[in-house]
């Protein structure tokens, strides 16, 4: 286990309102694998991504990375840990400092952590650029001169130059065109094979998760509602949210007409959770029992390692 999250929570206070962005989340990642964290807006997935390297401080719970408990480390030591946990952000247009050249951007981790300088740094930067498929002649250019896909490559190069153990990918290809996405995904896989990287892939795109991940978990309003291997989640989804989400994804296969069956209605704003009972019940179209509105379901094992948080555990699977 390279990363373990135990009962991690993050609570935001805005005025007298309390927002549980991340609510009691536990999961573990095996080294060298890819874990997919699936969720829509408001699910807390991005907050969770920032909790792990303690860019935001968790309100409760433990984060254990390579047997070190990060949550109790003083900030000074966190800097050292940050060499090993890197993040690639979603928006390639805003995640790179517009005033820094590519060379400065990619080389900066080496400078901050004093790992190289001068000619050695130059060489490392060039090697990284070549590795991610960027023309080394462009090292003096600014981000705005590159396309979205190239900017993501710069972000990836920057994240990997310190050879981290864990890379958190927060929607790495959502802003990219489909053919560029394919190139970037293949690059990520290639680099993972080469360096034995562990990926935490955060996305709302189920097809990307299926392509890249070994294990996955679905988040809804801050909590994990279903967790398991990719095959379990995609082929035998048990939680109503997972099933609805899967059916809502427009398939490029014209024979799979999705518009007919009822799936997810309303949204998290117009059908809010009243903090009592199952957080998904306001939008759940399955036949609910009284427990659904009163008791919050816990994440329980229902099969071969698959877990879901739902009172209707024995919902029949009909595809």
């Amino acid at each position: 286990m390279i990363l373990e999250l135990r009962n991690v929570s993050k609570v935001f206070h805005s005025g007298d309102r309390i927002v549980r962005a991340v609510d009691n989340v536990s999961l573990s990642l095996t080294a060298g694998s890819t874990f997919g964290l699936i969720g829509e807006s408001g699910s807390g997935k991005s907050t969770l991504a920032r909790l792990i390297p303690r860019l935001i401080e968790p309100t409760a719970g433990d984060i254990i990375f390579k047997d070190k408990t990060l949550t109790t480390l003083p900030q000074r030591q966190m800097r050292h840990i940050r060499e090993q946990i890197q993040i690639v952000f979603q928006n390639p247009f805003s995640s790179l400092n517009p005033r820094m050249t590519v060379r400065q951007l990619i080389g900066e981790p080496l400078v901050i952590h004093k790992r190289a300088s001068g000619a050695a740094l130059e060489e490392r930067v060039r090697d990284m650029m070549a590795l991610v498929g960027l023309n080394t002649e462009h090292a003096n250019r600014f981000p705005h001169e590159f396309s979205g896909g190239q900017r993501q490559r710069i972000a990836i190069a920057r994240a990997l130059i310190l050879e981290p153990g864990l890379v958190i990918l927060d929607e790495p290809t959502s802003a990219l065109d489909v053919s560029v996405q394919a190139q970037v995904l293949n690059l990520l896989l290639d680099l993972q094979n080469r360096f034995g990287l562990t990926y935490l892939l955060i996305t709302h795109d189920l097809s990307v998760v299926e392509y890249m991940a070994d294990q996955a978990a679905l988040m809804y309003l801050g909590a994990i509602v279903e967790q398991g291997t990719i095959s379990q989640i995609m082929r035998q989804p048990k939680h109503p949210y997972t099933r609805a989400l899967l059916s809502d994804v427009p398939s490029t296969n014209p024979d799979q007409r999705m518009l007919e069956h009822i799936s997810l209605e309303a949204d998290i704003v117009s059908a809010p959770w009243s903090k009592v009972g199952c957080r998904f019940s306001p939008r759940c179209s399955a036949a609910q029992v009284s427990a659904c509105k009163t008791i919050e379901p816990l994440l329980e094992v229902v099969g071969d390692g698959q877990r879901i948080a739902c009172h209707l555990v024995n919902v029949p699977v009909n595809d």
Partner: protein
Amino acid sequence: MSVTTALPPLVEFRNLYAEMVTFDGVVKVLNGINLTIQKGDLIGLVGETGCGKSVTAMSIPQLVPQPPARYTQGEVWFRGENMLEKSGEALRQIRAKHIGVVFQDPMTGLNPVFTIEQQMVDSILCREDALGSTGFPQGLLPVNRRKRQAASDRAISLLKRVGVPEAEKRIHAYPHEFSGGMRQRVLIAMAIAGRPDLLIADEPTTALDVSVQAQILRLIAELVREIDLTVLLITHNIGLVAQLCNRIAVMYAGNVIEVGPARSILTAPKHPYTRGLLQAIPTAETARGTLKGVPGMVPGLIHPPSGCRFHTRCAFAQPRCKISQPPLLTTGDGHQTACVLYDSVGVPDEKHGQLV
């Protein structure tokens, strides 16, 4: 659905060329667009960033600012009139009564300082009486009570139709009190308020969650049936068009390179770019690491590649591809492709093998 029908098409692009003048040079953004849209079509205009799909679609209501754009050749026919020759009041009437546009970002599409009711009433009155050239929101003026009330009632029924709960109450709210999906519904309501002939939706669900996206799609499909709407959907999401559209047009670097019935394009794509695009989408069957795509990058359009603009990235490129952009040729029932591989009367060139 066959392309050759007795009815004149609702929209017809005839060899449309357009350029944009920028400091760095002239961007040749449209390179001879040929496309027909029949009444009742739900056509998806698909392509990646920079292919010109927005410019193409926005040429119909003439919403492309001219400078820096200019149309150098060709025409855009809508309801039997050449839109390139329209201007002023005539153009405004057409926009008000016959075309509805839904833009991409529901967060900025509504004016934050006016209530929904004020904005919808303004929109409805604009369309019905073609008023509003003062630019002042009609909803605020103490103009003709009766008209205003009628417009307000219509707004409420529109909101109900697009699925906004508690419409009578919610209509007095401000945009920021709505979620993205709800705002998009409001924008759709405003767009169809005048019962337009054509609805142009430019990436209407890109900024929305998957579940909300599905709801919006369903809404559009229903509206098409109910009010006999023709829809031009611009998107880069092929799943959307697969589920919603009956026809698909694929664009690349300023050209429509393939167009036809949705099923035909998705199951038997002909153009190498279309194939590459479809192969780049991961599906349940894609084994890890085998995702192919289209190698290379979209070319800049100030100095676009000569001839077929795709030839620099095409695995099947031949010397003659550099010479001229191939025209759209019929390669099936209602299916057209712009590629030399099919130019012997729509029969694939056997020499170049695997394409069938």
